[in-house]
């Protein structure tokens, strides 16, 4: 099983498929201190003005800040704007 996965990985590497598509790992893009784009997330656990908690396939992402807004919300990406102070992660799945 493990061997097969490795093979697949190699194949994908060879094709140069982006990791956020081939794996289920989230991709976070921060523009300045006021924009955060998260791709590959599962659901919103908590949303407050100062605190956003998101669940992904490999763990939980916490975002602290002020006046946080969910500008765009679609099935696989989320754009958070506002004064972002800190981001931290909670790993749930061991690989």
């Amino acid at each position, binding site marked *: 099983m493990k061997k097969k996965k490795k093979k697949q990985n190699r194949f994908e590497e060879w094709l140069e498929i982006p990791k956020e598509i081939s794996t289920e790992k989230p991709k976070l893009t921060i523009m300045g201190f006021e924009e955060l784009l998260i791709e590959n997330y599962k*659901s919103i656990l908590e949303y407050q003005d100062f605190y956003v908690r998101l669940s992904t396939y490999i763990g939980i992402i916490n975002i602290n800040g002020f006046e946080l807004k969910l500008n765009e*919300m679609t099935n696989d990406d989320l754009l958070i704007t506002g004064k972002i102070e800190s981001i931290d992660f909670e790993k749930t799945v061991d690989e």
Partner: protein
Amino acid sequence: MYIKILKNYLLGYVRITIEGYFIERLMNLCLKKGILLWKSNRKKSTLLETNLSIEDFKRMTELAKQTKCKVKIKQKKGLPFIFHKYKKRKIFFLFLCFIIIGILCLSNFVWNIEIIGNTTISREEMLETLKKEGLTIGTFKSKIDTKAMVNKIRLDRNDLAWIGIELKGTNAMVKIVEADKKPEIIEEEEYCNIIATKAGRIVKINALNGTPLVKEGDIVQEGTPLIGGWLEGKYTGVRYVHANGEVTAKVWYTATKKIPFNQTVASKTGNKETKYSVRINNFTINFYKTLSKFQKYDTIEETKKLKLFSDFYLPIEILKNTNYELVENQVVYTKEEAKNQAVEEAKKQLEEQIEEKETILNTYFNYQETEEYVEAQVTYEVLEKIGTKEKIVF
């Protein structure tokens, strides 16, 4: 993403407030069902403001019932709502449609003809020829075939070197280049005489080829042959040639001017009045009723075509009549003044005719006086070349 939001603007969207304890659950449900939420903002811990398209709003209310949330519409945005707002103002829309249709209809006609590049051919004459080919003010634009028209006009008129017709908006620009009238070219092999173009006294005759027919000091009339295109030899007989040579002669130009001693001169007083009227095609509407309050006046008429933008002329003209009040004064000239004025005017008239002023040899003055007027005759004596070639016709 932006395309989605644009689509939602076109189809309409609402800004809603959701109140409840399980807002996150509702949001996750929306995600799963594929309902797009944008510009979400958490006002309070139990209150969420978000945008939502009209299509998704019904499904959203069902989900809100499941999660026991209250949904309130705050704002309606987008085109469907704007249209709905204007549904009650039917007459406004009707007139808007009328105006748009009117402009579209009017833009299919030619409402102005601009002629560029004419110096000797008058504008009226050009318009007349264009009318024959079917281009007048008010013709349908798609009926005009500019290429065929240009070809036809060029065949018909010899005095045009080039003509171009360009339709720009409701404006037809006709550009013309006038052809110079070329003198008849006589080839070297052909036989010709040299004849006089003007009446005058011969000063010098220099025949390079041919037999001179006049002597120095002879007075010739217009059309008199000066150098004959033949040579006579003792043994060869008469042999025709291409005559060539220069003939200079004294030519007289005269002008007479009559100046009466008593004259009425009209001068402007500075008072003026302007009157406007509107002309649609050939139908004029005056905006005034009264006649002019001045007894004697000059009228200067100005027309201005109305146009939208730069090239969209409308078939409406504004006429502006300006009346200037005139005062007539009786002026009595003395003999000297009248004489001087007559000479000045005669000179001015003559100088327009003479091309080279350096060749003026003499000027003669001649006066004739009566009790009422002075008549002055001015004569210029000018040295000029007066020969041109003319073909010999057997």
